[in-house]
């Protein structure tokens, strides 16, 4: 308990310092939210394993360390330093963030269709206040989640993507959040706001990576507003450094007949918690959540998804797969709520796990709350090992044991790769995954 207090005190001091640094740039409306969020953070405190939502994930390692707000290091890095994390080369818009702060020199924002805005969150607070303010003010999720509260209290920069109605952005938008080594363990709090208006289409890739080895804490919040009949393809590639802590919350609100597809690939980090909350808030909306988590060593990866069927005739498909080696552990918690009015809901949830070691473990929990009576909801979870028959078949054809294991493990993940519709991104993910798997085995 004393540790907890000490840690909260560290954040209190940091928040006071943060307020002082904002001097002059203090945006009154925004600062009221920050203060309210910090207060809420203080009230909630860090969760323990007694909290229902954190039953299998112990955040004590995060709580123990007095993280300092990260400082950005502009000008020290060149494009070639970050090239290994680039997803779609020269063809797409790429915004680069160092420790949560936008780096203009490393970013490429090409010619964009009329009305489209792809700018830093900090810039949007001034330039697009009319769009940003109501959404930020209306976002009250910090009241229920302590990590979102922490992010909101310190929020200063990140990305703002605005696609006006009737606009199709063909090239994907890559948001690359990099953490660099800092003198002291640092926390960065990227905040991303994505607004896709009616009848529009966009593909967003969010990447999180560590440029250097070392301990840091990335605590991001991404909010997506998908308008009526819009199409949003969302990729999240988590490649943090081995010692890093990564907590990410994605909140999606979907309008009528909109389609949201999420592809979440989690490879790095020592302690990872990823929340995806989707609100199907218009009739006929559809969401698809695909996830792949790969862990080794003593990594712990926790995926919490929540899909709220608030309106009728919506569908959700969810497929999460885990590959766990050594003494790694993972959590999958899939919550599906079907509200009373959400008739004709069609929801399907699947979680499959491949355990490559006797010491690896998975806790998988479906949570279905169905209040409507005319719905179709299915869920299933599997936990298994590599198939001996398949392994022998490959070896009997001359393929070496380790290569055969890699091939079968890769095959386990392949249906998630096949779901990636943008070819260059698929190739990149493919490469990253193959590289990771061949090192695992």
């Amino acid at each position: 308990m004393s540790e907890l207090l000490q840690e909260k005190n560290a954040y209190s001091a940091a928040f006071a310092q943060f307020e002082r640094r904002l001097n002059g740039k203090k945006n009154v409306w925004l600062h009221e939210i920050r203060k309210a969020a910090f207060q809420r953070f203080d009230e909630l405190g860090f969760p323990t394993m007694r909290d229902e939502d954190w039953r299998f994930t112990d955040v004590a390692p995060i709580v123990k360390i007095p993280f300092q707000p990260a400082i950005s290091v502009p000008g020290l890095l060149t494009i070639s330093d970050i090239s290994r994390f680039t997803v779609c080369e020269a063809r797409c818009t790429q915004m680069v963030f160092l420790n949560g702060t936008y780096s203009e020199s490393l970013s490429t924002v090409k010619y964009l269709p009329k009305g489209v805005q792809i700018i830093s969150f900090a810039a949007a607070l001034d330039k697009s206040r009319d769009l940003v303010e109501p959404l930020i003010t209306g976002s009250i999720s910090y009241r229920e989640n302590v990590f979102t509260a922490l992010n909101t209290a310190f929020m200063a920069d990140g990305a703002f993507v605005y696609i006006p109605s009737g606009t199709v952005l063909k090239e994907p938008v890559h948001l690359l959040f990099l953490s660099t080594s800092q003198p002291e363990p640092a926390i960065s709090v990227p905040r991303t706001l994505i607004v896709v208006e009616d009848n529009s289409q966009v593909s967003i890739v969010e990447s999180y990576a560590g440029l250097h080895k070392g301990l840091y804490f990335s605590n991001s919040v991404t909010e997506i507003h998908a308008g009526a009949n819009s199409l949003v393809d969302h990729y999240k590639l988590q490649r943090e450094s081995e010692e890093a802590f990564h907590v990410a919350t994605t909140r999606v609100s979907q309008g009528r007949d909109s389609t949201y597809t999420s592809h979440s690939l989690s490879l790095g980090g020592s302690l990872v918690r990823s929340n995806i909350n989707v609100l199907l808030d218009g009739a006929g909306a559809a969401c698809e959540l695909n996830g792949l988590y790969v862990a080794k060593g003593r990594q712990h990866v926790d995926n919490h998804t929540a899909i709220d069927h608030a309106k009728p005739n919506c569908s959700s498909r969810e497929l999460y797969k885990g590959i766990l080696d050594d003494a790694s552990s993972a959590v999958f918690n899939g919550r599906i709520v079907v509200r009373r009015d959400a008739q004709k809901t069609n929801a399907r949830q699947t979680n499959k796990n491949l355990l490559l070691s006797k010491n690896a473990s998975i806790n998988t929990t479906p949570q279905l709350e169905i209040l409507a009576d005319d719905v179709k909801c299915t869920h299933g979870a599997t936990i298994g090992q590599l198939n001996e028959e398949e392994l022998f078949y490959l070896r009997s054809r001359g393929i070496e044991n380790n290569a055969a294991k890699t091939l079968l493990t890769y095959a386990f993940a392949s249906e998630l790769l096949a779901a990636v519709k943008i070819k260059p991104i698929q190739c990149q993910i493919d490469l990253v995954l193959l590289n990771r798997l061949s090192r695992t085995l």
Partner: protein
Amino acid sequence: MLDIIDLHASVDGNQILHGINLSVHPGEVHAIMGPNGSGKSTLAKVLAGREGYIVSCGTVTYAGDDLLTMLPEDRARKGIFLGFQYPVEIPGVSNMYFLKTALNSIRKYNGLEEMDAMDFLVYAKEKMKLVEMDESLMNRAVNEGFSGGEKKRNEVFQMAVLEPKLAILDETDSGLDIDALQVVAKGVNALRRFDRAMILVTHYQRLLNYVVPDYVHVLVNGRIVKSGGKDLALELEKKGYTGIEDDLTRQQAVNS
């Protein structure tokens, strides 16, 4: 090239092979026939190195080396091929990728240059004709959703691609209709060479109408009870396994 001496093997604690003796030389085709449970498939799996099959006694020498201490992949790289009785489905791995990986693994081991995707495609298409295999099967996952006949053709196709020195075909003929059987037999015949040996493990004499073996061995209760030329298969067809066994019992009685 292959010398099996007094081979005893068990699986799950059950003794299946009770002293097998067999010598195979380059260019020869041997048929091993026997009723269900006689140990035919066990023999094939022991030779290919399947885990879980325990050899309690005896030796197997292949090209001068002790075969039984080799890893399954090394056996394949040294030229042994097992055609599976029940080919395994592997979702998510394309047939093409699988075979290219296998071939290159074998080539690399033998000091040959690896084949690139284009060269492999040309090479594989040539081999596909041998077994009249549909090209579309190449891009599908290994054996996934293949019919019984397609799976067996795929085994012979793999053999054609990997060009083994010793092929062991475990009941490749079982469950095939006459058309598929003829295609498989045609493929096997086309792959007969002076420097390649084959062991056909089969339950039925039917395959031997199309692939004529040099030697036929009858396996009963884990022992080769009778060996002979191709006519032995016909005798077997007439008398059945029990007939052969009765003959042997009678002979033993006379001898003693």
